């Protein structure tokens, strides 16, 4: 379709962690998409992308959940999620689930080509190069694994962050190394997960940044939880909150107002 002449109609895939823990990220996504000229709708029949079941080997439940997502998002020009992990699940894994069901495979393929992670959608599809936002502070950025390696989300958040007034970016050494969240991994192997996130927070602290940003709630809950346990004052936020200039509306992850 010709997007230049028409307002893109975007279905927001909220993601379960944003829905449950951090609704502000969902509203930040809506604000960014609307500011970029999209109309945003939120299908109410969505729940989760199915990854917890998929990565636990439960294919039957995964397929049921995936069918639900496919149905809920049919008819949109684009489907956008504020998560590389969930967008990656829909884009890179739904097809394989329905390898022996041609009709659903086709519907999954159709969804695949319309689904994007939020920040890469803004930059790569809509051509946005700057946002209208302010943030006084030095941030460092963690590249979440699925977004980075499945979807190639790397430069896009940095491009937009550079346009935020007052913001300084201090690159994180080992930004591409997994934080140890891994969905159910962090519950099944908590000691190993703890070792990994401990190395990550040490790297974060060494940057001297006062704020940590990333694009996936799972990683953010993990890193924020570890930083807070260590007594760190570093503020943790989803990148969309900063880009949408909504940091005054909600305290950082794991903090209270006034922190």
């Amino acid at each position, binding site marked *: 379709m010709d997007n230049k002449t028409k307002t893109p109609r975007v279905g927001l895939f*909220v993601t*379960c962690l*944003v*829905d*449950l*823990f*951090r*609704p502000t990220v*969902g509203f930040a996504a809506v604000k960014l998409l609307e500011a970029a000229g999209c109309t945003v709708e*939120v299908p*109410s*029949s*969505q*729940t*989760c992308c199915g990854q*917890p*079941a998929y*990565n*636990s*080997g*439960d*294919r039957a*439940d995964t397929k*049921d*959940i995936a069918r639900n997502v496919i149905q809920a998002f049919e008819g949109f020009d684009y489907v956008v999620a504020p998560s590389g992990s969930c967008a990656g699940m829909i884009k890179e894994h739904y097809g394989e689930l329905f390898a022996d069901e041609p009709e659903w495979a086709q519907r999954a393929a159709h969804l695949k080509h319309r689904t994007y992670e939020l920040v890469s959608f803004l930059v790569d599809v809509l051509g946005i190069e700057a946002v209208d936002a302010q943030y006084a502070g030095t941030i460092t950025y963690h590249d979440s*694994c*699925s977004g980075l*390696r*499945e979807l190639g989300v790397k430069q896009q958040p940095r491009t937009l962050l550079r346009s935020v007034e007052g913001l300084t970016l201090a690159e994180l050494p080992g930004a591409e*190394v*997994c934080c*140890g*969240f*891994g*969905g159910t*991994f*962090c*519950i*099944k*192997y908590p*000691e*190993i*997960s*703890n*070792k*990994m*996130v401990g190395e990550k927070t040490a790297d974060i602290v060494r940057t001297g940044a006062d704020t940590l940003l990333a694009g996936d709630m799972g990683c953010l*809950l*993990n890193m*924020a*939880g*570890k930083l*807070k*346990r260590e007594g760190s004052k570093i503020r943790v936020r989803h990148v969309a909150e900063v880009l949408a200039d909504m940091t005054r509306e909600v*305290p950082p*992850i*794991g*903090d*209270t107002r006034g*922190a």
Partner: protein
Amino acid sequence: MQSTSHAFKDNAHGALADERLQKALGKMKVGFQDKRTRAAARLPEFETLRDQSRDIKNHVLEHLDLYLERFESNVIANGGKVHWCRTPGEARDAIVEICRSVDAKIVTKGKSMIAEEIELNDHLEKHGLEPVETDLGEYIIQLRKEAPSHIIAPAVHLNKEDVAESFMKAHTLLDPHRSLEEPRALVNEAREMLRQKFLAADVGITGANFLIAETGSTVIVTNEGNGDLTQTLPKIHIVLASLEKIVPTLEDASTILRVLARSATGQEFSSYTTFSTGPRRPGDLDGPEQFHVVLLDNGRTAMLGTEFQDMLRCIRCGACMNHCPVYGAVGGHAYGWVYPGPMGSVLTPGLIGVQEAGHLPNASTFCGKCESVCPMRIPLPKMMRHWREREYEKKMSPQAYRNGLSLWAWFAKRPDLYRLGSKIAMGVLGAMGRRKGRFRSLPLAGGWTDWRDMPAPEGKTFHQLWAERQGKAATSATATPSNDRKAA
């Protein structure tokens, strides 16, 4: 070797508490990763070579029988012999029989993971033979009676102080007051000890990185030259290899060699790449009198045609473990058997059973780094997930975990109930966590809160707030008399 893969969690616990190991692992990670990155960046065609290498092996795996038979006929034509072995037992018997035929006493060995797989050293000792590892790392862990912790750097879990301690204990004929502080001193001492064994050995056993069908050659890559001395000095050279090591041509081997060392150690090429084609021919200056290839299956052909076939492309470079954050945290021994890291997490359940090795494919965050560096583009996370599927089908995961997952899935498939349940749960959690913004402990979440705080949710869910916002918008729309319904 006796597997302890079932005890992965306990093994990992021990490894995380082992300060010396953690020190060794810290050094290892940075070295291997930087070198591989630089080596790949220096070669413009590196990514293309990865594609070609993958395609070569895929082709071979579709025609494995053809190439293996061609290989055998060429080995025979060169004056050698191929021993087809289905099981570790058959391979061990074949090797002992060859050793006995020349009344062998000392057997030198180049590095071979297949020898570990079939527990060859124990077996040789049981039959009165003295196996001597000639790769420095393997030599060290043989003295310490340990298993390798890495497929290309078997003693990577040790520091030089550990090695000095082992040499002092083992080399009792040398001056007990000598200095072994410098790595150079350690290398010289090992060389001194090994030289005697090289000269005295009756049989030399090496592994193989490649078997070449068109010439009947076997190929090894080493950095110490120990492989060459192992295979050229004794009367008999035995090559111990698993059957998926086959490639059709010399050209194919050259292609894969170009990605092998770069992926493994970041070298352009290993210091020694040695091609062996049959025993010594009339006029040859050196070489063994007999050339045997012990060809092992041990479960590999059973992986053909399954979702695990791609694993048979593996060339044992070790890149996946060098880049794996889980391997980097716990080291190789925690995996409990011969093959650690991501490739081991896929291969081990295939070779010793998913009952024994069920933890390994679960102990991954699916961060995808392994697949991104695998020179053969093996989809390692995908295959770990396939193992998880088999485990789920067999109901192997803990009941409590399965119940939790089923309950969650039940709700996830019923959006209205999910909405209601999440609204109540998050409302409660949000209210409880409002004062501090996080929890130091939470019922049923000990796995999380033993180690880190759990950030509190905002309170209302997104869908709840979105519905409120839509409601307000609708109300204000109806309340405005001038509202143009059509446009809305």
